[in-house]
């Protein structure tokens, strides 16, 4: 890290870091670390400095440090953030409190158990299910730019789970399918090549799916990729409602699942 070798600054910043070591302590504690302050440091740089220079026992997830991998999400002063994108200059000189993501079980220190989210991705079939399987010899599944535009925004999700940590509905009921999984379900539902809308509807058009959402909108506020999960959920409500009226008013009609 080039910045940490730079000289000429005496400024420091204090991090108050959530610690939980299940083999040593029953209850989590907070530990204070004083680290050097650099204009271009993000919270993740400070955590890495602690890990390398001060306390090697601190545990946290990170990988790309450039807002792509989605693994360094943590609560920074109570707000869910990618720590690789949270500059310490925006908090300095105040103490920065770093905690694991809200509403997920903590495994150790800043590492949460994401099992619940992964199960939800499976439940909503967050992958492409082709309308018709065809052999490679028949060529690719083609798509126009206009068809791509329909879902592109929702495909930007990096599974960082900040939206779950911002969502009070998920906080109150962990059965709620939640922002990212519903946005990703929409991503595939809106894909012209996909044919599993009907199967996903079983999960996302249920109470624990879209209907539990009260449109607090904080998921959209914290999303680092402008996916707008809150918008995705409301649009899914419109689709579900159209579908419902269609099936009640014209029960004999053939439903065009793609135009929902």
């Amino acid at each position: 890290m080039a910045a940490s070798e730079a000289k000429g600054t005496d400024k420091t910043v204090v991090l108050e870091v959530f610690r939980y070591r299940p083999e040593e302590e029953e209850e989590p504690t907070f530990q204070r670390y004083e680290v050097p302050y650099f204009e271009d440091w993000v919270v993740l740089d400070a955590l890495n400095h602690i890990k390398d220079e001060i306390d090697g026992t601190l545990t946290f997830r990170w990988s790309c440090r450039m807002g792509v991998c989605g693994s360094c999400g943590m609560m920074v002063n109570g707000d869910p953030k990618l720590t690789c994108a949270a500059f310490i200059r925006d908090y300095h000189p105040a103490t920065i409190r770093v905690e694991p993501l809200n509403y997920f079980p903590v495994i150790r220190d800043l590492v949460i158990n994401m099992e619940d989210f992964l199960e939800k991705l499976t439940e909503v079939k967050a992958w492409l299910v082709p309308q018709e399987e065809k052999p490679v010899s028949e060529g690719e599944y083609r798509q126009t730019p206009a068809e791509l535009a329909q879902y592109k925004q929702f495909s930007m999700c990096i599974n960082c789970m900040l939206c779950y940590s911002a969502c009070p509905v998920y906080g109150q009921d962990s059965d709620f399918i939640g922002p990212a999984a519903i946005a990703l379900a929409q991503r595939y539902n809106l894909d012209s090549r996909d044919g599993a809308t009907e199967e996903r509807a079983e999960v996302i058009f249920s109470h624990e799916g879209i209907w539990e959402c009260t449109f607090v909108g904080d998921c959209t506020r914290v999303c680092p990729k402008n996916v707008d999960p809150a918008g995705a959920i409301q649009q899914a409500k419109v689709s579900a409602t159209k579908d419902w009226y269609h099936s009640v008013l014209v029960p004999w009609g053939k439903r065009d699942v793609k135009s929902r």
Partner: protein
Amino acid sequence: MVKSNEPIWWSLFSAGGVVAAFFYPVTIIITAIAFSVNWISAEGLRELAGHPLTRIYLFLLIFLPLFHWAHRFRYVAMDLGLKGLGGILPVVCYGAALLGTGLAVFFLVWA
């Protein structure tokens, strides 16, 4: 496909939200402010309210926003910690809205 009844309530909630958003501010200005400053008299308003088109207007302004209230209140009450009432709340809220709608039909059409 799961037959959730939510689409009925959500569509009524949304329609009521639109009606309240577009028509409530101006209607409150008429019945509270315009009336208080004598811009319009009670008799003038009553004459207007008797007009068949106004009756339709009033019916829509009662029926849909009642369902808007019912749906939003049902969820907000749970958010405020009344989780235990989860079973009875929908019955009370939508029931009240349905009753109000019935009364509105009675007052504006029959009476």
